């Protein structure tokens, strides 16, 4: 059988190198399109052949690498990883199309970095060995750092350094956690291994409750900074806002924090020394993120910054759902990651277009754009509605699953999240009103509607938002299978 | 026979003088001379113990050490000459262009 997982990581990597060698924008974008489309085709093939009734890993590949240290080349996907790979594979070709006619310096580097990010992010999702996992995890930083620091906005240097150091520190703490697990397990079994499933199974054998808690917290810290969650979110608005549009979309595709939460944290959770404390930590951070992000988004003047803060709010659902520990809430949280990726990418594209056409993102300076850009207005209204959780669109499925699922175990935190829904509605509508509706300001000059590449890319993603809102089972089934496994483990351990 | 303590005492005194010079002096040549003193203090010890233990290894080592001290002095003085030609002084405080 074809080594699909290796291919979908290798193809973008190889093409990234080739793209660097190209001379013109036309060649570079063509390369990028070919690479991303072939990843999409392979992923769709994988998705269609995916068995969503089993929680086991599929499409596995396993080769020895450094046996003396227990490092292997082990890749595979399950119901947690598959939707996220699908998300990346779907969005990136359209991201390339979206930037098709843009003028920018050194396009070859630009597209190479896009492909590099895709390879690294998909690499994290496929890795079943902590060595691979960590390598890809760190690899995601590099292209994004350059993306911000080369093509970013006026404050790009500050933002890129802040992002890099912040998340890098978190990664190092996570690495400490990995080492703790690795050496503790080595001590007990006598054979070194970095295999993720094996180590997760051996975690419960560690005797010291304190050590288990330390390992858990170290890994958790690494993940929640990436998500990002309150109070470790302050790199995110800067980085999202200063990044070029494509960079912001890539940031949104960076769902590795939440992925780690489901893949690594939840299986470990019932065996930690004090699982209830861990659940409380996650629930508090999640619910505070939801309401806190919402209030901050409400107070923003800059459209893109508002979207960035709304992302903090939305990612709170991921933590809250994970802490809910019922199959519905956990799968809702996974679905939130997926749906949030789709919604936010269109939202950032809209912000990028508005910034390009009018030269400003300050909402008070805008207004009445719907008269000049009806196509953008339709797409933007749709995605804003999806983002505020309108039923029939994908965001609602995630929200309602998380809320309904978590309420039984965490009623107080869910009530906080429910209050935030009103605020969420308020800032979305307010932003729409001040950018799209009202009187058009002549000072903004002549403004043309979005071009057909932009219409195509944003339109297709918007249709997918609708599709997954009406037919969530398309990805929710595989998430449910895996989250049922997690939930049943919790039930066995009496958490 | 002169007791070993006297040799060690002498050696310690010379070493301390050399150390003091090394720590306080600013002139390059004086510092080099202080280093020579410390080396010679060590040589005295080597020779004294060698004689007491009837083992020639110590004296051989002392010869090595003297040869090494000569080399060190030669290179050291050469560097100091070069610095003097360049800067007109061999005060070490003023030779800090590589600092930080």
């Amino acid at each position, binding site marked *: 059988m074809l080594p699909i997982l290796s291919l979908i990581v290798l193809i973008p990597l190889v093409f990234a190198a080739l793209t660097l060698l190209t001379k013109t924008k036309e060649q570079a974008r063509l390369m990028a399109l070919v690479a991303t489309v072939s990843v999409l085709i392979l992923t769709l093939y994988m998705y269609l052949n995916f068995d969503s009734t089993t929680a086991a890993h599929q499409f596995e590949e396993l080769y020895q690498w450094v046996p003396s240290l227990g490092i292997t080349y082990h890749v595979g996907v399950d119901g947690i990883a598959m939707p996220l790979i699908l998300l990346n594979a779907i969005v990136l070709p359209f991201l390339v199309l979206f930037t098709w006619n843009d003028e920018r310096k050194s396009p070859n580097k630009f597209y190479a970095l896009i492909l590099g990010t895709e390879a690294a992010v998909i690499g994290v999702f496929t890795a079943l060995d902590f060595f691979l996992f960590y390598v890809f995890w760190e690899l995601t930083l590099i292209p994004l750092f350059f993306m911000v620091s080369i093509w970013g906005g006026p404050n790009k240097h500050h933002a890129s350094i802040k992002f890099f150091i912040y998340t890098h520190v978190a990664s190092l703490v996570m690495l400490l956690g990995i080492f703790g697990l690795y050496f503790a397990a080595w001590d007990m079994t006598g054979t070194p291994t970095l295999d993720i499933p094996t180590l997760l199974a051996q975690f419960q054998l560690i005797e010291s409750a304190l050590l288990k808690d330390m390992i858990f917290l170290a890994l958790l810290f690494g993940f929640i900074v990436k998500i990002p969650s309150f109070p470790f979110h302050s790199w995110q608005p800067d980085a999202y806002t200063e990044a070029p549009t494509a960079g912001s979309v890539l940031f949104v595709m960076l769902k590795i924090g939440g992925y780690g939460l489901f893949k690594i944290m939840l299986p470990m959770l019932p065996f930690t020394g004090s699982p209830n404390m861990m659940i409380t930590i996650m629930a508090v951070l999640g619910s505070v993120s939801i309401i806190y992000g919402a209030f901050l988004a409400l107070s923003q003047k800059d459209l893109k910054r508002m979207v960035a803060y709304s992302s903090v709010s939305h990612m709170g659902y991921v933590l809250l759902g994970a802490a809910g520990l019922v199959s519905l809430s956990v799968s809702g949280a996974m679905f939130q990651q997926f749906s949030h990726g789709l919604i936010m990418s269109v939202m950032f594209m809209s912000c990028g277009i508005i910034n390009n056409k009018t030269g400003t993102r300050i909402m008070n300076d805008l207004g009445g754009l719907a008269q000049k850009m009806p196509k953008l207005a339709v797409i933007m*209204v749709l995605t804003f509605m999806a983002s505020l959780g309108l039923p029939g669109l994908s965001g609602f499925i995630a929200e309602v699953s998380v809320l309904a699922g978590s309420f039984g175990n965490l009623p107080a935190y869910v009530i906080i999240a429910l*209050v935030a829904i009103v605020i969420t509605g308020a800032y979305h509508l*307010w932003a729409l009103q001040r950018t799209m509706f*009202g009187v058009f300001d002549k000072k903004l000059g002549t403004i043309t509607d979005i071009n057909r590449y932009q219409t195509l890319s944003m339109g297709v993603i918007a249709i997918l938002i609708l599709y997954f809102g009406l037919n969530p089972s398309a990805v929710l*089934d595989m998430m449910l299978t895996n989250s049922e496994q997690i939930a049943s483990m919790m039930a066995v351990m009496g958490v | 026979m002169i007791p070993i303590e006297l040799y060690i005492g002498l050696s310690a005194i010379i070493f301390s003088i050399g150390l003091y010079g090394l*720590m306080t002096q600013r002139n390059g040549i004086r510092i080099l001379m202080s280093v020579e003193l410390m080396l010679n203090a060590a040589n005295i010890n080597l020779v004294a113990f060698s004689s007491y233990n009837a083992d020639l290894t110590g004296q051989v080592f002392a010869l090595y050490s003297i040869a090494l001290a000569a080399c060190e002095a030669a290179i050291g003085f050469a560097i100091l000459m070069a610095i003097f030609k360049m800067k007109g002084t061999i005060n070490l405080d003023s030779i800090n262009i590589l600092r930080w």
Partner: protein
Amino acid sequence: MAVENYAFLIPLLPALAFVLTFFFGKKLPNGGAIIPIAAIATSFVISLLITLNLLANPEEVVSQSFSWFAMLNIGILVDPLAAVMLTMVTFVSLLIHIYSLGYMSHDKAQSRYFAETALFTASMLGLILSDNILQLFICWELVGVCSFLLIGFWFQKPSAATAAKKAFLTTRIGDVMFLSGIVLLFTDLFKIYNGAIPDGVYILRFDVIFSHIPEIAAMNATIFGMEVSHITIITLLFFGGAVGKSGQFPLHVWLPDAMEGPTTVSALIHAATMVTAGVYLVARTFPMFIAAPSSLLVVAYLGAFTAIFAATMGIVMNDIKRVLAYSTISQLGYMMLGLGIGATIGAEAVGISLFHLINHAFFKALLFLCAGSVIHAVGTQDMRQMGGVAKVMPITAATMIIAALALGGFGIPGTIIGTSGFFSKDAIIESAYVFGASSGMWIPYVLSIVAALLTSLYIFRLIFMTFFGKARTDYGGHESPATMTIPLSILALFALFFGGLATERFNTFVSDTFMNDFVHVNIAELAEIGGYHLGHHGHEPLIILWLPLIVAAAGLLIAALVYGMKVVNMDRLVSRNNPIYKLLYNRYYQNELFTNFFSVKVVYEGLSYAGRAIDTGFDWLVGWLSDLVLETGESLRQFQTGAVQNYATAVITGVSLLIILIKVVMEVL
């Protein structure tokens, strides 16, 4: 093939019409209006046929379910309650669409208008057809978003955009309560099934919910030291949703502002869709409410209060559409009151309330369309600039007077002669009397009677100010085209005769909506959970039957004296110096209180800026940490002087200290 199998087409056709009109409407004449009109007409025919079938066999409801995701489903349920709503919504919506052909003919964005109204109708139909509470919520929200789009239809106008936002946000407060209720209900049911839901059981479907009411009622929560049953909490939260959607106090503030949209949209929102959704929700989940008597009391009191509260404001408004808006709020209060008094009369309350809802839909749509017709011709919404319009627009005037009579509730008790509003509103007021007689709580009855007086007063004030007397400005104007007057005439017929013809049959038909193949709820048993026994309509004293008519006539008389014949000079009363007038005119200062103070000052400026300050704090903390690292490095750097002599000194001092230390340690040991 039986027509029941096509029930799913009822919401689907208008939804399809939305897609077609949205993408291709611009290329067709009239903005593609023919597509939604045809779609809704077909839906209407299907609904009507199903209703007729149901009338013959009330047991054989239409019910189809499909698995959606997890343990939730998508499905349709047409029982008598849904059937009458479907027929009414499709019918009124159809007439409004036809009317819009004329009314919107000059608008540039016609195709967008028809697309959005089609979607609006589709969402409302989906809401009515839902066989589970989640799907109902989904359509509920879609209705909300469509109202947002339609109220903000002329989005270039900042006031329209603001009104749209206000409508959406205010109703969203209610929606969140509704959602909270669903979340709590789901959790309780999940607990009842112990987390193991058998295949084929859809946990949020109404039959499952209703069959577990006793278990939910047995669950208690402690709130502020009080033991409250879960069923009470859930129903109150549901009612919270209904309060938002149906414009009950205190979430009614969006409704008058919703007049920023085209008048046809107001008619659609106020008559057929949107506002009736809240009443429908309470009616749909009535078995839950009956098991929670305190919730029903809240419904009754709030409904009665809203009825009179809105009516007082209706008296002083000068904008013709605003009068109608407050009238809607007031009438919705009546419907809620009708449901709330179910505490004594059981499932009959659903029948009475729904009957008023249907009748109200007819005459309120008629009132709005007439108002639209007047505005269309006169070019203003301010009644002070009208007067004598009856001469120019006889058909409009005649139909509007019929509607006003229906709203005022004129008819002869004990016969089938009377306007439609008479039968339904009197039934509610009489039930309020029964409620008072059996429970000793007379406040709802008193409020409803006074509100009836005010209703008649404000609507005839509108009639007299608009249609009679001399023209106060030179407005020109002409009778509207046939596409507009024909729907008016049809609606007028219904407003006149529907009540008298349908009253008996309707009430028994709808009241039995919880007894069929799909659900079989014994309302009396559920009422016992709530701790009371159901009473019946007794023989009310004659004065009780006649009193509503008497107060309505009194209202008409006062309006005629003051505004028609001008025998009483109102100038002294109607002035800014009169504190009561001022209070009413400024709508009890609720706009200042809710919108300007609470939303803007407290939530927006207060809380969100506090949040910003905290965030700056976090940023500062992180910055401080990184500065700390840098400064530590900077100060540590001072030790690296680069002078070998210093290093030598340090080394020697260190070594000496080490030797002494070792020496001391050795000594001690």
